[in-house]
């Protein structure tokens, strides 16, 4: 298939990346969603209880899907090869970020709907709160991965932060991940904004590093 140099084949790039780079991550994220109901009750829950599976389990799909955004180019040979192409790597990273965040949001929404069908008192706000958690944790992984040039290291800070939330609880204030369990929703706005900021920083740093190389 021939493309004009002026046209940027967004859909084609997304499709190819989905097939070659994201399949394993998507499979792990789906597995996480499927395993969650086996471990924790997802039926007949009131609003605060319904937040637990969403915040404590399903939001981890963000780490699984967003952290490996830069992984393919962390292999030097692939990096050399893609650098020779006319497609901007930064734009490819942006496409990957958008579809990964989209898939994370979709999985969370599907999970929320499945909880609704099991007579849980879930609302769209709960789903949005879980998406904010997912973006925050995932972007933390993305940023670390960009800064260190190693995706595996990228998984470390989000998991540590998750552990800190279990250990420290509401002491984390506006960046507390499990606030919806106690009926508080304001932290989600901060988590969402911080998530977007870290995502932008990761993409910007990756671009900067590329230019400086």
């Amino acid at each position, binding site marked *: 298939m021939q493309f004009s140099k002026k046209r940027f084949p967004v859909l084609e790039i997304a499709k190819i990346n989905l*097939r*070659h780079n994201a*399949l394993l991550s998507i499979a*792990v994220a789906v597995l*996480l969603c499927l*395993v969650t109901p086996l*471990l*924790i*009750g997802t*039926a*007949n*829950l009131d609003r605060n*209880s319904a937040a*637990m599976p969403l915040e*404590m389990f399903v939001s*981890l799909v963000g780490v*699984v899907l967003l952290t490996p955004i830069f992984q393919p180019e962390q*292999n030097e040979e692939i990096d050399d090869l893609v650098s020779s192409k006319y497609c901007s790597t930064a734009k490819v990273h942006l496409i990957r970020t958008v579809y990964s965040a989209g898939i994370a949001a979709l999985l969370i929404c599907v999970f929320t709907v499945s909880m609704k069908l099991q*007579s849980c008192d879930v609302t769209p706000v709960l789903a949005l709160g879980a998406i904010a958690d997912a973006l925050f944790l995932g972007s933390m992984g993305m940023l670390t991965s960009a800064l*260190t040039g*190693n*995706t*595996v*290291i990228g*998984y*470390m*800070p989000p*998991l*540590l932060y*998750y*552990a*800190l939330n*279990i*250990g*420290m609880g509401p002491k984390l204030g506006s960046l507390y991940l499990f606030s919806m369990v106690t009926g508080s929703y304001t932290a989600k706005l901060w988590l969402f904004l911080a998530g977007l900021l870290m995502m932008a920083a990761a993409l910007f740093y990756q671009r900067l590093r590329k230019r400086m190389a």
Partner: protein
Amino acid sequence: MLLLQEIKKIVKSIPYMIFVAAVVIGLFSQGVFRFQDDLLEEPQPGGSYGYKHEEIAEQIMPAALRDLLTEFSNNNYTTYPIGFIKHVKLSESKQEKMAEILSGITGNDKDRILQEAAGITPGASGNYTFQIGGDGMQQDGNGGFTIGSDEKQQNSPEKMAFAVRDDMDYARFKELMGQADDLLGGGSNYAVDSLIGYGTVPLTYEEAKERYDLAISSDKVTGGYARLFSDYAGVMVLSILPVFLAVILGMKDRRVKMEALIYTKKTSAAKLTFIRYLALVIAAMLPVILISYISNMMVWSSYPGIQLDYLAPLKYDFGWLLPSVMISIAIGMFLTELTGTPIAVAVQGLWWMFDVNLGIKSVSSGYALLRLAPRHNAGADSLFRTQDYLDHFGDLVQNRLLMAGIALALILLTILIYESKRKGKFGGNAIFKKAVSSIRDRKNKSQA
């Protein structure tokens, strides 16, 4: 010396520095550097010393019945089948069986219980459930409970009293509650082993003094703090973070294309793999040993005249924490060698996440056989719960030996895989990659 070289290589790497920073942050967040704010106090006569659970039938039976009635009337039962909270809603037929159990306990007619408490008329359609409990349920002077709600009072003017029947034997009560637990799928507060949770009595001065003396004589004070440190360190950092070191360093040879070169070296697979494993374990344990001592030393000067065990942190580091580090690194090395991918991070991450959450119900002393991070979350304010620790010490030893054993078995398997690869007999994840690429090729061909 190869071991020293490997250790140097690890401690100079960026992942190791991040690992150390993460360990410090994780432990700092748990307050292990502020143990001096949590000091043992000798109980004085006339004070309050906390509570303990005891199997007191007169206390357990009405309290458990009250909870079961509340949950029955709401048809919303809270259980912990494998540690996580689960809300169970019973089908109508199972609610009827539950009513039979309640009938056995209270001596009231099953149909009446169904109608009065759960708002179900047997055989009628369009049943309804209304919420009682809380304000609606009140204890009367005889240890029974009366249910009062506007709706019910409209239906029946007299209040219905529920109480454990006078001739109820505790053994029979436990049996009936066990049946209720089975009906709920297990893991409820009505399980035979959990009923003791309803029996709470205050500790006497003598008991509190005995616990204090045990903390001094058996734990020698520092042992209690070392155990609390191990509880935090195991669950927060050491059951998960070492896997990152193993995976990152395991994949480094592949990243820098050194794999084939190392295969040609004279060093045997067993020696190389084991030395690398040992180097990783030593490197991961170094900051832990250091921090455990810094944390423990904070309280040394607060106990003048008491014989302290200055080796306690070291004993707990090796006895309690080392097996967690060993298994975490072994899983990292084994899966990285086997698949050539960082899948070990996902595997260990999931195990750790479930282990952490499963532990929520058993943080006082949870040493189940397959626990990745044993829990004993008891500080000086609860006199370290030394007796609990001593009572379950055998379980802890079994768990730790099993984890260390599995870790060594995985390392043995890693050596075998490495040796096979060196001989060109095993291509790691070649089969997996081949399968995936054939699927992709097929798709590409069909699109062409």
